């Protein structure tokens, strides 16, 4: 089982989110948009690659599974279900 902290570390490293600490990213904070972490569509592609490389889980469909990109919690749930 991976934890939200595991994923946050990989996201900070993989997306180059310098100046952001693990505990500054809330488990339910929106990853995209102005109200959350402010990531964009390029980051979404990068996240799919990070998850495949670091956790061996492939995201095969952004449409059906778009909800998984909402927050760290939704991503972790998807990874643990598909690992």
């Amino acid at each position, binding site marked *: 089982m991976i934890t939200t902290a595991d994923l946050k570390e990989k996201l900070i490293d993989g997306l180059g989110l310098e100046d952001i600490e693990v505990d500054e990213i809330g488990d339910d904070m929106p990853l995209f948009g102005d109200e959350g972490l402010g990531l964009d569509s390029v*980051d979404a592609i990068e996240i799919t690659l990070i998850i495949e490389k670091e956790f061996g889980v492939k995201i095969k469909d952004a449409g059906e599974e778009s909800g998984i990109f909402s927050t760290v919690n939704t991503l972790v749930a998807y990874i643990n279900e598909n690992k």
Partner: protein
Amino acid sequence: MRIYDMDKKCYVEVAKVENPTTKVEQLSDAMYCYKHGIFDIIYDKSQPALRAHVESFGEDFLKQDEMQFLYFTSGTTGTPTGVYKTKDNSKKQAWALIDTLPKDMKFNRIVTTVPFVHIYGVDIGGVVAYEMDIDVWVKENFVPEELAREAQVAGTLVVTTPLFIKALNRIKQDMKFDKAYFLTSTAPLLPEDAKEFHEHYKSSVMQLFASTETGMMAYKVDDETVLRAYDCVEIAESDNMLNISSPFVAQKILDNTIKKVEFPFQTEDIVEMLSPHEFKLLGRSSNLAKIAGKRISTLQIEGIVESLEGVECALVKVRKDEKALRDEILDIYIESNRDIKQKELKEELKKVFGSIHIVFKLYNGMIITKSSVGKKIGFKEKN
């Protein structure tokens, strides 16, 4: 031409859509206007400043006789410029591109990852499909795995960006795309990346060299380094900069007021001419970075940094990270009496550039060195 909505798994009628927001709606509306010769204004309505700028003119003022589209630059290097195109401009451009596609391949659909709020999406993803009378497959969000599945289908012309080529290289699917062909936009794709893609997936990538102001100018395939101008596009070089006269844009722009443009048009691209129709791209005017497909002035960024309390001077340099999906990253060197935080600057940039995600790295504790005439020439660490 039909539009296939990949999310809803159904064909969508080409129709007039008021305030289109999704990719399918944007394409449907633009192609309805193209089909019926109805004037349409194309820009990214999710950018508040750009939207306010366009709406300030009023549609009656912007509508010009015989014009098909009015495209807008992002305005990240100053006031957004509107560029007019007639239907004939777009049609000629589409056929110039179609004529360069491999003659031994027959295309039956376009699959596109791009939005239809810019010239690339509408003119290439939409008008080319319309002129070829083939379907366009559209999806709101693609992940690389999905694009890989679609690219295995014979007769697929993929209209995408270098980002997806690099992402496909990284996932290294055990697949062949030898019956598909890829088009990418102007953002740079390194020859090594194009070569790796070609060798692994057995498919080719044609890179289109274009801008909103000039339309398509030239192209190259896979790891070629020389760009070939389209037959009807005249190119020349003046003071190392590319000059262009093109039948793909009307000689009419909106720059606070509607103006006639004299050709040749001087671009910001630094080139080496190799023949009357071939050139090498050496770089861009040094104070421009290209981020998320938009040209951003580094001088403007420096101005924003220097407006922060305690900052005496800032120097912005553009760095290409070859391993990253993003093309360019800004290194910002700061001379100040306090450390500037990433979050603080991010908030300031958001006020000016809206939701455009600018990736930067801050270097506090620097001294910016200047020439005798005050030009910033470098940096060194304090003490």
